């Protein structure tokens, strides 16, 4: 464990949203280090800034001040090509609303990131099918998102996130639009992927089911880090609700 390196480092990040008359300070100086290969949950009530922090880590939005380092590279310094490369190869994204491309089939959705990465169509299709099998949707490759249930769509999204074997998976409320048991399935799937492939999973959530699988929980409150708990500090009882208070 002592050898593990920080894959993500967030330094003094703030984010303001200018709403015209008022400026909303959503993040008020976040410092954070995330070790490679861990399963991290960013927890906090709605409006606490966890999704905003998630977007900053993923390079999907720019911080007002402060820096985000991925593999010790400041992502604000990257040009458009390098940023696209980072999003394509290094990070896999999973969203609350699945965000699959509606006109494409499950397999095509999984293979787009591979196409961007320059992998040939045949290899991409082969790998895509293997990923679909892995997430338990073997026979559904030719189905469009509208022909799949919410849980199945999220499985496709998980497979898509894994397409280019990224080192980080960012999941923003991955279970937010799913029912209890489907949500649990997705969490298990993410945990398994994290264990099998050594991927760092960072998920912004307020789903307490996540606590059971997290190596570390980062509590955000009102734009600041409230506390960081390691797995053994978490007081998980039935339902895992105790540490919520």
């Amino acid at each position, binding site marked *: 464990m002592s050898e593990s390196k920080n894959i993500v480092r967030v330094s003094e990040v703030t984010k303001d949203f200018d709403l015209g008359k008022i400026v909303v300070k959503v993040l008020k100086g976040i410092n954070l280090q995330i070790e490679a290969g861990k399963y991290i949950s960013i927890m906090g009530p709605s409006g606490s800034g966890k999704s905003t922090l998630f977007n900053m880590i993923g390079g*999907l939005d720019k911080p007002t001040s402060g820096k985000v380092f991925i593999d010790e590279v400041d992502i604000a310094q990257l040009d458009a*090509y390098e940023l696209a490369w980072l*999003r394509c190869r290094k990070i896999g*994204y999973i969203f609350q609303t699945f*965000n699959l*491309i509606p*006109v494409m089939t499950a397999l095509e959705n999984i293979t*787009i990131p591979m*196409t*961007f990465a320059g992998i040939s169509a045949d290899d991409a299709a082969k790998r895509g099918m293997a990923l679909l099998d892995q997430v338990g949707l073997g026979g559904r490759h030719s189905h469009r998102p509208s022909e799949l249930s919410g849980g199945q769509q999220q499985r496709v999204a998980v497979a898509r996130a894994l397409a280019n074997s990224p080192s980080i998976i960012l999941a923003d409320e991955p279970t937010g639009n799913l029912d209890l048991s489907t949500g649990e399935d997705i969490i298990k799937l993410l945990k398994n992927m994290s264990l099998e492939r050594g991927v760092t999973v960072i998920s912004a959530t307020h789903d307490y089911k996540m606590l059971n699988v997290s190596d570390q929980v980062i509590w955000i409150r009102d734009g600041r880090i409230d506390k960081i708990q390691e797995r053994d500090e978490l007081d998980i009882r039935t339902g895992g609700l105790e540490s919520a208070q």
Partner: protein
Amino acid sequence: MSRLVALPLSKSLQMAYQSIRVRFFRSLVTTMSLVLAVAFLTFIQTGNDMASGLLHSGEPTMERNLSKAGYDINPETHVIESSAKQRWIVFLSLLTCVVGIINAQLMSVTERFREIGTLKCLGALDRFIVRIFVIEATLQGVTGGFAGALLGGGVGVLSTLIKFGLSSFAFIPWSTIGLTMFYAMCIGTVLSLVGVLYPAIVASRMQPVEAMRVEQ
């Protein structure tokens, strides 16, 4: 340069085509407005072309008939003049064309902001997105423009034939009408591109999160 992201042209063509095919009815609505605008433009122009053809037929009664039908003929040069009224009509038809097409394309891009944001998250460069939309708009522009030119030209020729009798068939200036249809088709395609370029560029330059946040 190992840090490259790529989208082969064949793949972007396939994506554009697929998007039109799967969203067929939505594309049809966009294309229909293009068809109608181009048809209107072609119809007006074809009417003029036909009148010129008839005027040059040499039939003595024709000049009077054309005047009666509302065409302005210069009494000295015996040429159909593009009067202020004429120019106004062409201008209006162009305006309808521009507004109709740009509106339709703007709507169809705005509907897909989330998709654009998602593609950017997956590693698409700004120009991949613009390219996909440009290919789509070109396909729609050419098809819609062609259909519109045929429709407008056809109706234009037919209405003149009905007005001036079947005998005028011999004086139809086919090549001029063909050229008119070709121009109208080009105008339709260019406008379709203009309509799609602006929102596509704006969307592709957004941070992915902003694009995905836009209300659908």
